[in-house]
């Protein structure tokens, strides 16, 4: 047996396909996190009271902290974009943290490749899968440009993005690169954490425990960075309209 570093997510089971869609082990975690967040939201919604209980207090604390960041950046458009940006943050945060639970990435079945034995885990961190992070980055990209178009109209937005007729292609490529940088940053960080903990756990488990504590911090920081970058790019792309208001 040896630690296995794999970049792609593995299928969750032999025959689990939804039409053309293959259910992978990182999708399972994504679905679990989504379901858990939905259940918490529904539970809070059903027992909403003006004297908040414990759960409502926690949820209100997170949302108010986020609102304190989104409101100054987006001004009068904050109410419209807040749900999306808060959802991105909360989802990435809990997907990152959920991936640190003991059973993720460590239990699975053994596959034989000739002489080698390889562990195929049942669960794989959702954000350590490039498909997941590219999907998130595409949502962020759409948010940035749709809100820009809503603020300035299609041609006004194109003008604001390209700045100068000669340099327009360069600036458009830079805008497109936002997708790559957002998705690879999140993917690389989470994969690096996963690999680091995995390898150090094989060599000297106590070191792995230390990295695990660091990963809790990195999970939060990456969620903050992804959200703040989305927010500040959106803020820039609707910026001029805000000044006139």
């Amino acid at each position, binding site marked *: 047996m040896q630690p296995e*570093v794999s*970049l792609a997510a593995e299928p969750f089971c032999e025959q689990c396909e939804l039409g053309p869609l293959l259910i992978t082990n990182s999708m399972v975690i994504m679905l679990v996190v989504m379901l858990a967040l939905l259940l918490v939201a529904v539970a809070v919604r059903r027992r909403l009271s003006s004297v908040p209980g414990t759960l409502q207090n926690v949820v209100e604390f997170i949302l108010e902290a986020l609102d304190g960041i989104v409101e100054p950046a987006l001004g009068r458009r904050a109410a419209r974009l807040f749900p999306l940006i808060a959802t991105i943050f909360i989802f990435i945060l809990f997907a990152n943290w959920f991936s640190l639970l003991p059973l993720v990435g460590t239990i699975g079945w053994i596959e034989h490749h000739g002489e080698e034995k390889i562990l195929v885990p049942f669960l794989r961190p959702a954000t350590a899968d490039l498909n997941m992070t590219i999907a998130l980055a595409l949502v962020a990209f759409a948010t940035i440009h749709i809100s820009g178009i809503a603020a300035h109209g299609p041609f006004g937005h194109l003008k604001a993005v390209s700045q100068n007729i000669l340099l327009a292609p360069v600036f458009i490529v830079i805008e497109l690169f936002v997708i790559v940088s957002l998705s*690879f*940053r999140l993917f*690389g960080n989470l994969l*690096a954490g996963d690999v680091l903990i995995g390898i150090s756990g094989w060599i000297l488990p106590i070191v792995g425990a230390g990295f695990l504590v660091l990963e809790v911090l990195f999970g939060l920081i*990456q969620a903050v960075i992804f959200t703040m*970058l989305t927010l500040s790019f959106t803020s820039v792309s609707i910026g001029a309209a805000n000044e006139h208001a």
Partner: protein
Amino acid sequence: MEPIGAGLAIGLAGLGAGLGIGIGVRGAMEALGRNPDAENAIRTTMIIGLGLAEAIGIYGFLIGLFLALGLGG
């Protein structure tokens, strides 16, 4: 060649990211010393900047990993 390339990728990317993070934190510390009231604004901006700098190191790590796993073709 691949192991050398992988080592160089992570090493040079780490060098760049380390320099960037160091310069960024230095700037933030100086700003904080000059204007301690702006701590929250400085911290937020610094974390974003550090994220951007750190991403370079992460790209190097990914490329190193691709090379080490033989995905470079």
